[in-house]
């Protein structure tokens, strides 16, 4: 009898309680002698028994097992069952790596319970545990001896134990027991050998295919079929021919299993297909015909389609349909796909619906037209099947059909369409299919019936802008709503429109987008959507990416920007300078970073305690107030039109827009001079110009 606690505590309390018990038991366990615990297991008190079972250490199975063995013979079910449970734990323990020697010893200890003096009950109990622990190569003689026991129940338990043991010796023992076994037990042994798939006694098994007993013959056929050896084909054929009403099923099943094994073992494909075909051609049981169809589908190619379709001409065609559809689902290869598509129009509606699902799961554009046509069906069952299939297809071209159902279907259809579009968009986004995801998100936006879903769709449109999205935005959003769209979306749409040949629409949107970029974050976001085009758009975005540069000059942080090196702020690009014994001249440098980050270490020198200069000329059409936004590693001083704008004698990493200082630009040409200092480590800066309100300022570079 097991302890039946009454659970009245909540989960947390239970957890705490168990933890407390386990901790206390752990502490207590080592203190309790093994013999005391063994006594506890045989106690009549369930609590004591339960504690003993939990406390009994599993670390030393060799010591514990012999003490537990006597309890297996107890008359008290609670005792022998508990002992068996602990023995099972110990048996599992010794099958772990590092216990090889203990595994053999424990096996020997357990085998003693198979002594003839033991009761059959004890033997049956230990046969439950032995298969766990018997190692490969161990003599299973004591178990094998039970195969000839007078008690059929014990024989069967021994057979079961040997089958589960699964070693070569176990298979050999089963094989050796065949001769003396009665027919029904011979059949049981042969089925066990079939499941064990050992090659050691196939010749012996072969002799049982000629048994007088049809059950034995069928079982022997199974024990050969798993090999996939075509040399057994005539034998299995003969077994089948000689089977009776009760054994025909097993005999035919063996035949199909031989075909399966032929394909799996390789090199016998044609023969295996011919076996399936033979089974299918005859008026056999539905189960076997279905099995043959499954084999043709699982392993066959397009050549099996005629056979399968012919099977549907029989009286049981309707019953075979599930098997046929499953086979079609399994068939692989482009040629099979083409032929399935050709079959579709002539199939009954019940199969057509199933075929739509198959076409979807094939995820092949080959089937899209058929799926999209079905999506327009007047029959709601077809629309529903088509919708599921289009979703499963994960093909961008499926969006069209999904939308068609949404437009023509019921409210229920529309809800399913929304869900399908959501799933489709998510898949295409994960696949980074820009066009497909853009289309799916766009349609999701159109079908969205909640703000949350609309927002999700808009996020997708933002990530994957497509030209059609522009029209949606124009149609579905008023001017204020459009103005509130993130500038990155607008930029992405502008670029996409331009790429799609809608340059005028793109240009308008670009202008709108540019007015909306008012922070470093927005600009960085814009770069992501512009991709490689961002660099070319630098002047439109106010970012200076091309400079004349000179350096390095010695620099001391304590002197900040007080040392004049290039006659700043009056720069002559044709001048040369001497520094540290070297002649330095201005050179043109540009950056590939759309944010204008320019590396002085790479372009001037890899040095510490130096400074360098960068000079650029830009032009704007009208005089204006601006902001000069800079970031630098380390310090920076900027002059605009020879007027100091900022001076940061710092040691820091670069961050865009670290400083935002006002300045004035003249109509026409303007000069910008930067001195960037280097204490140690990285040496770079970035500079961009914005309007006074922070919006991007477009300029024209001056050579």
């Amino acid at each position, binding site marked *: 009898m097991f302890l039946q606690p009454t659970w009245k505590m909540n989960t947390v309390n239970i957890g705490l309680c168990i933890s407390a018990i386990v901790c206390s038991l752990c502490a207590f366990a080592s203190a309790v002698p093994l013999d005391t615990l063994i006594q506890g297991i045989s106690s009549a008190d369930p609590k004591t028994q339960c504690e003993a079972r939990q406390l009994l250490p599993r670390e030393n199975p060799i010591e514990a097992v012999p003490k537990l063995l006597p309890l297996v013979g107890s008359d008290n079910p609670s005792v022998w069952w508990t002992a068996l449970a602990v023995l099972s734990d110990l048996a599992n323990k010794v099958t772990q790596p590092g216990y090889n020697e203990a595994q053999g010893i424990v096996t020997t200890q357990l085998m003693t319970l198979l002594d003839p003096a033991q009761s059959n009950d004890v033997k049956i109990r230990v046969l439950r545990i032995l298969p766990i622990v018997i190692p490969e190569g161990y003599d299973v003689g004591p178990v094998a001896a039970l195969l000839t026991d007078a008690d059929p129940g014990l024989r069967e338990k021994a057979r079961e134990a040997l089958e589960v043991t699964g070693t070569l010796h176990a298979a050999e023992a089963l094989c050796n027991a065949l001769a003396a076994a009665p027919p029904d037990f011979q059949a049981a042994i042969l089925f066990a050998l079939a499941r064990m798939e050992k090659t050691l006694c196939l010749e012996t098994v*072969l002799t049982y295919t000629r048994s007088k007993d049809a059950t034995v013959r069928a079982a022997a056929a199974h024990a050969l079929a798993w090999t996939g050896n*075509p*040399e*057994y*084909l*005539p*034998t*299995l*054929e003969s077994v*089948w*021919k000689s*089977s*009776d*009403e009760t054994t*025909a099923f097993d005999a*035919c099943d063996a*035949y199909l299993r031989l075909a399966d094994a032929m*394909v*799996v*073992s*390789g*090199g*016998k*494909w*044609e*023969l295996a*297909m*011919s*076996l399936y075909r*033979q089974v299918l*051609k*005859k*008026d*056999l*049981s539905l189960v076997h015909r279905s099995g043959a169809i499954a084999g043709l589908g699982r*392993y*066959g*190619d*397009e050549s099996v389609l005629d056979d399968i379709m012919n099977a549907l001409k029989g009286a049981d065609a309707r019953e075979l349909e599930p098997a046929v559809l499953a086979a079609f689902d399994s068939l*692989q*290869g*482009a*040629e099979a796909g083409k032929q399935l598509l050709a079959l579709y129009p002539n199939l009954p509606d019940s199969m057509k619906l199933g075929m739509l699902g198959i076409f979807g799961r094939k995820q092949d554009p080959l089937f899209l037209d058929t799926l999209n046509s079905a999506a327009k069906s007047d029959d709601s069952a077809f629309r529903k099947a088509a919708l599921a299939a289009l979703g499963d297809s994960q093909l961008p071209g499926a969006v069209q059909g999904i939308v068609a159902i949404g437009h023509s279907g019921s409210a229920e259809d529309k809800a399913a369409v929304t869900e399908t579009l959501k799933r489709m968009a998510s898949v295409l986004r994960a696949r980074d299919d820009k066009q497909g995801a853009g289309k799916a998100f766009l349609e999701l936006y159109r079908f969205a019936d909640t703000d949350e879903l609309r927002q999700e769709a808009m996020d997708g449109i933002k990530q994957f802008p497509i030209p059609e999205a522009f029209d949606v935005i124009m149609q579905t959003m008023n001017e204020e709503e459009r103005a509130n769209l993130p500038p990155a979306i607008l930029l992405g749409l502008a670029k996409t429109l331009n790429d799609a040949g809608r340059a005028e629409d793109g240009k308008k949107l670009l202008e709108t987008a540019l007015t909306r970029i008012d922070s470093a974050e927005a600009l960085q976001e814009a770069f992501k959507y512009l991709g490689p085009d961002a660099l070319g758009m630098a002047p439109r975005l106010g970012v200076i990416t091309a400079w004349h540069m000179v350096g390095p000059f010695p620099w001391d942080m304590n002197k900040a920007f007080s040392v004049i090196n290039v006659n700043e702020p009056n720069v002559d690009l044709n001048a040369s300078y001497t520094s540290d014994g070297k002649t330095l001249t201005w050179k043109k440098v540009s950056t590939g970073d759309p944010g204008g980050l320019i590396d002085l270490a790479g372009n001037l020198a890899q040095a510490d305690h130096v400074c360098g200069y960068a000079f650029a000329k830009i032009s704007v059409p009208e005089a204006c107030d601006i902001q000069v936004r800079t970031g630098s590693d380390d310090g920076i001083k900027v002059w605009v039109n020879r007027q100091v704008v900022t001076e940061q004698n710092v040691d820091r990493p670069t961050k865009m827009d670290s400083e935002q200082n006002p300045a004035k630009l003249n109509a026409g040409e303007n000069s910008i001079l930067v001195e960037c200092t280097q204490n140690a480590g990285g040496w770079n800066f970035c500079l961009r110009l914005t309007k006074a309100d922070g919006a991007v300022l477009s300029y024209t570079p001056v050579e």
Partner: protein
Amino acid sequence: MTLTACMMLAAVLTGPAPLHFERQAIDHVTYEAASICDVNNDGIKDIVSGEYWFPGPEFKAKHKITTIMPSDDYYDDFSDYPMDVNGDGFVDIVSGGWFGQTLRWFENPKGQTGEWTVHDVAKTGNIERNTFCDIDNDGVAEVFPVTSPVYIFKLKCDAGGKGTGAFDQFIVNPKGGGGGHGFGCGDINSDGHTDLIFSGGWLESPANPYDVENWAWHKEFDLGSASVPILVFDVNKDGLNDIIVGAAHDYGLWWYEQKKDGDARTWIKHDIDLGRSQYHDIQLHDIDNDGDMELITGKRYRAHAFHDPGSKDPLGVYYFEINKGDFQRVTIDYGPAGQASGVGIYFWVDDIDQNGWKDVLAPGKEGLYLFRNFGPLTSGSK
């Protein structure tokens, strides 16, 4: 169900019985080339594939030959041709690949274990796959790295006909012709000389094939992304050699029937199999011992990773019975990678166990498999 209804199985084996093969997984190596030869001169055939050789007859052990450069989905080893290059009585291996652009041979350490010495023969440019044809009928195959320009490498032999470890190099028809994906050797015009076949036409051999200026280019067909090799064979037994070609990187397998009207030669395209893709390597052997050649081929798995049409279709190993222009496909193995095999870029057919039936050694990115041929099933069944 009646017993008589289900007892029909004798019919399974009526008609021409397909050959019975047993597939043996040799190793998980994914080199695309392999060959069968006696590496250690013990009289037992061994297997070579990429970096290893596997001693027969069990092929359980493997010994390192050399390290082959991996590149993405490939190894730089597009042929493993056995040839005694240095004349020491032990077969060496001639290799080369697309990425290393180098024709090379691996020197057999006289059958001993230990890595083999690698000898670079020439930097030839990207090698689609080495092909070996005896164009001068001296009993030793010449090496054709399928490159542009068209090279011939002829093994230098001593007076006794033994290899010396060196090759003479020739460039055929420097004025043009050749190139493209695909290459084959054979006597197109029945003049007794071995011509060279390319995707866009064929080069007619002069009487002396090393008279490289006088190969004549005939632009007579467009085979597309053709197999290596392109086969020259009288398919319809009309006395004129025809061409058999697979699509190396697409669907299809065809034969081109040669027609002659006076001096005018035309080619009629016939489909063999349009339902399978990546027939990169095709070979002719009498695999069923009926005295006629069968076309043996299969899929090159992931020929261009998964970019070729049909690359995700099942793999397969096939032979085609040829009957005067009719090709009947017989499937040896078919299924997805992991369950079935293709044949890689350079497979080998030979009677490895000397049971009288030619076996198929199928390398590839799905693993290295040996298909042992036991002939038709009608003999020796239990």
